[in-house]
């Protein structure tokens, strides 16, 4: 448990107790294109690491290489310090939860859970004890004699989880385990998985393309795109300080204002927007004046009440286009500096101002919340 906490407090400094590491791993299926391009990733013991990315970005491929079902075309994968490229999957001792559960249809729940214990040669008494414990862990004790076909998706998911944990693996891989569940059940299972991770102190590599899931569950998130890790950071940092436009757009909602760098100073960049307006922004991955840029601002960091604006905020005129009522928040779409899909979110509080389409307002944000990123 302590290692997990350590990983969370000091996520960058994980090299010294690295449990899993990918070193310059490349993977190609057809010999022509690289599906995974130069992957370097170190996972600490007890960490909950999520691989997040759009479809086809190579997440499953990475997981399969770690589990041993695909071989890395080049590079090395280390598990507890030992290279495992030549270790067959069944000797790696890695628990795995598949997206479609992969419970053996011809076995009951009990037999499914007994399977990994039997192949390890455990005696009946020991097996039964472990099965009971694992089923209790996922609160499915009463379903021992059911077959997978007689259970709901959520129940199957729990059993699959119990089966991956029953033989006490140090490392558990989960490939979109909750993809097939409805929203409510998914949120409940996220909580359960998180609880198990903390109780058992296991290392989890979790694959998802649901950013909410990634942010709520993980110690660190690796954002994949196009076979590369775009950013590897704890959730808060990922959300608040995306390092490039892809991450900024992939995680959460984001306003983009295209422009050109006028001047680049220490920690501030002056950007001339397409309408000619000058704003200050925090430079992230731009290198020189004259570069094209996209300034990204989170919708919830935009203010319209003068008394609420942070000191040093940049103000700008905006025209309300429409307001979408979303229950907890109001989503105000407006035209700002020539951009027509600029969104501001305001909380739906008592006495909150109701905007009307066509209304002119002045909005503002702190230059630290405006991040000048690479254009894409």
């Amino acid at each position: 448990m302590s290692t997990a906490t350590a990983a969370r407090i000091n996520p960058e400094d994980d090299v010294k107790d690295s449990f899993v590491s990918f070193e310059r791993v490349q993977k190609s299926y057809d010999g022509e294109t690289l599906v995974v391009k130069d992957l370097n990733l170190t996972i600490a013991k007890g960490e909950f690491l999520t691989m997040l990315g759009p479809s086809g970005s190579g997440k499953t491929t990475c997981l399969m290489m770690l589990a041993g079902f695909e071989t890395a075309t080049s590079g090395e994968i280390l598990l507890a310090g030992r290279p495992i490229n030549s270790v067959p999957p069944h000797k790696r001792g890695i628990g795995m939860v598949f997206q479609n559960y992969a419970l053996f249809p011809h076995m009951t729940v009990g037999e499914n859970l007994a399977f990994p214990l039997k192949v390890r040669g455990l005696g009946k008494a020991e097996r039964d004890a472990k099965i009971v414990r694992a089923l209790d862990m996922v609160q499915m004790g009463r379903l021992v004699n059911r077959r997978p076909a007689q259970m709901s998706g959520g129940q199957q998911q729990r059993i699959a989880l119990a089966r991956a944990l029953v033989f006490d693996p140090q490392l558990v891989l989960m490939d979109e385990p909750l993809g097939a569940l409805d929203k409510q059940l998914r949120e409940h299972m996220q909580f359960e998985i998180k609880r198990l991770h903390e109780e058992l102190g296991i290392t989890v590599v979790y694959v998802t393309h649901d950013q909410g899931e990634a942010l709520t569950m993980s110690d660190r998130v690796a954002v994949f795109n196009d076979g590369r890790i775009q950013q590897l950071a704890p959730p808060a940092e990922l959300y608040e300080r995306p390092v490039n436009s892809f991450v900024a757009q992939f995680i959460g909602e984001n306003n983009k204002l295209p422009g050109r760098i006028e001047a680049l100073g220490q920690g501030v960049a002056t950007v001339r927007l397409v309408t000619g307006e000058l704003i200050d922004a925090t430079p992230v991955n731009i290198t020189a004046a004259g570069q094209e840029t996209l300034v990204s601002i989170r919708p919830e960091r935009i203010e319209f009440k003068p008394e609420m604006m942070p000191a040093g905020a940049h103000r700008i005129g905006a025209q309300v286009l429409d307001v979408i009522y979303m229950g907890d928040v109001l989503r105000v779409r407006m035209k700002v500096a020539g951009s027509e899909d600029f969104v501001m979110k305001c909380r739906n509080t008592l006495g909150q101002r109701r905007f009307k389409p066509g209304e002119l307002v002045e909005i503002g944000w702190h230059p630290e919340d405006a991040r000048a990123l690479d254009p894409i």
Partner: protein
Amino acid sequence: MADLSANGAITGSNVAVTPLSTTDGRSLKTALAAAQSRAKRRALLLVLPLLLFILISFVLPIGQMLLRSVHNDAFSANMPVLSAWFDENPGKAPDEAAYSALVSDLRQARADKTAGLIGTRVNYDLAGSRSMFTAAARKAPELEPPYRDAVLAINADWGNPALWQAMRSASTPYTANFYLAALDMTRDPQGNIVRVEESRRIYVSHFVKTFVFSGVITAICLILAYPVAHMLATLPLGKSNLLMILVLLPFWTSLLVRTTSWMVLLQEQGVVNNALVATGTVDPANRLSMMYNQTGTVIAMVHILLPFMILPLYAVMRPIKPHYVRAARSLGASSWTAFRQVYLPQTLPGIGAGALLVFILAVGYYITPALVGGASGQMISNFIAYHMQSSLNWSMAAALAAILLAAVLLLYWLYDRLVGIDNIKLG
């Protein structure tokens, strides 16, 4: 609520739950039946032609065959007087009255030209007796009493008790004798059931051989088909379709062509032997004999029946996703354990279907053993064909076929008990 319970009382239902009724007061069951009956009638009309076809082409012939195996009136219909004497004197040795009846029937038979038929029928039970009937019928018109001496003067064998036993059993149109013969048994002159002499026991051994052959062929087919089906099921669809065409190719070639090509390949002067001799693997003096014996039958039949094993296996394997085996491997199973405990059990329905299909087809196969089987590669169906076509003993053929049918049904039943018939999947 009141009329609901009234309704329940009218329909006389004593169950605790009151039957539901529709809004217009009819019971729900009646309404449902009425609503469905039209659809049912229509469905029945659609399947009616097929039903008739099955009745005419399947049920009737099999019934006919079963009847024929126990019924043959060639003797009883054409020898009415003698048959009547047998009826009146059970167990009695033939006296003058019997001979007189024989002569009168033979005279009639000569007039009707049925002596051959009668002789053939008795000949089934006692070989060599057909000519006695035709000869005696020819002379019957000139015979004078006492008939016993006159008949014995034609041929002393007419006094043989075995002949009279054979005639007595042929005098009733219904008989189990064909079944006895099909099981290598007969009746001695006293009417007791005994096994036929050693040298004439052919059927039982051929039944056994047929089942052993079919078992071997099924096993070989399974061993060959399993990896092929697995490959077809795991390849991408485009490639597997191409290979599937190759698997199905034999279906589009005439059975005869395929069998003769095996003959060309496997005979002593055939392609395979020539190649072996040319490469020096086999001595020219003792070329392998792979044709006109059991080996030939097994090889050719495995080839012909292989698709029947591949197709059901493929149908079952295709939807099995690779993640089951992957899951097993990640749980610590070696590839062999994963195959045996996870993959194989999921393909059992296909194995069952394929094995049953191939076995049943093999048991009844006729053309291939007839062409390439030689003397040792004959199966029971070849005897059935022989009795249908050459000896014209249709009753015997029917009895053999009925035993075969019973054996197959027995196997089917056993399979159902052991594996469960719902565990069969053809696609």
